């Protein structure tokens, strides 16, 4: 009877010890999330570059319209081109703002998930360590029982 209890207790101890391997899964998730965060950062940098180009395009189209107005009737065709440029730059601006907004939304949800995984990983490892300590105490008590 006592030998059986010892054997079962040892098996529980081994099972609990193997649970600590869950740390590898957390490390893997952590690496994946890190890669995702890096990707977000790179996309944000691209978004900022895009924003500069759109701003530049808007300025150019404004200047083109002013120059066309100065030139009078001779540049009616140029006015059409300048107006079309302005329409395009406005559309690009709206799209860029939407893109930037999407990146911020992504940043928050990715960060919240990343941090949840990180914090939950720590709490689970602490819980497993607590369980391991309890099993260790149980072993010690069982060992004191005469065979």
């Amino acid at each position, binding site marked *: 009877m006592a030998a059986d209890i010892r054997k079962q207790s040892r098996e529980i101890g081994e099972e609990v010890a193997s649970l600590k391997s869950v740390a590898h899964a957390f490390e893997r998730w952590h690496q994946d999330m890190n890669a995702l965060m890096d990707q977000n950062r790179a996309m944000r940098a691209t978004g900022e570059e895009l924003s500069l180009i759109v701003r530049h395009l808007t300025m150019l189209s404004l200047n083109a319209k002013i120059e066309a107005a100065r030139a009078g009737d001779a540049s009616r065709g140029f006015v059409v081109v300048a107006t079309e440029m302005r329409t395009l730059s406005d559309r690009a601006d709206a799209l860029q703002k939407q893109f930037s907004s999407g990146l*911020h939304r992504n*940043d928050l949800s990715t960060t919240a998930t990343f*941090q*949840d995984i*990180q914090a939950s990983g720590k*709490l689970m490892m602490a819980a497993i360590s607590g369980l391991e300590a309890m099993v260790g105490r149980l072993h010690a008590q069982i060992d004191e029982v005469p065979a």
Partner: protein
Amino acid sequence: MITDQARSVVERIFADAMRSHLPVDPSHRLELSRVDAAAAATASAAPHELIVVTSASFAFRLLTVFHLRGGSVAQAYFGRGRTDGAPAEAFGEVANLCCGAINRELARYVPHLGMSTPYVLHSRCMDFLADLSPQHVAGYDVAIEGDVRLGATLCLCGSAAIDFSPIAVIASEEPASTGDLELF
């Protein structure tokens, strides 16, 4: 859902942690005022950085967000006179200490808790806080020594009912582990 008791416990712990850990000198006066959470979250203020730290339990996650909108005054204050680094750099350690205190106190009510490392986000991310389906959001304005200003938002999310019952407090009088093993 979150019970009124859990809400008041979390808010008290958060306020206590800010009072104890935000001033770089314990003699500095800190004024804390509740503001509409949506107002605290809005991007109407000039763009600024946010520092986010998450505490997680099995039933919920608690996001603590600090809004670094105090400019160079706050940067110099938290950087103890240094103004060469990014504001978030100077504040990261303070945020960590503050959230560590929140976690330690919460551990009196919740047996299993873990805490993330701080992360920097753009203030416009706050526009999407509702995406996290929070059960409770509280906003604060913080002023230290009158002129060092920042904002703070507490965001509690969970799929299960959240309550910190008095029985849980008694049961966890033996200090709960906040985690000896460090991952990551």
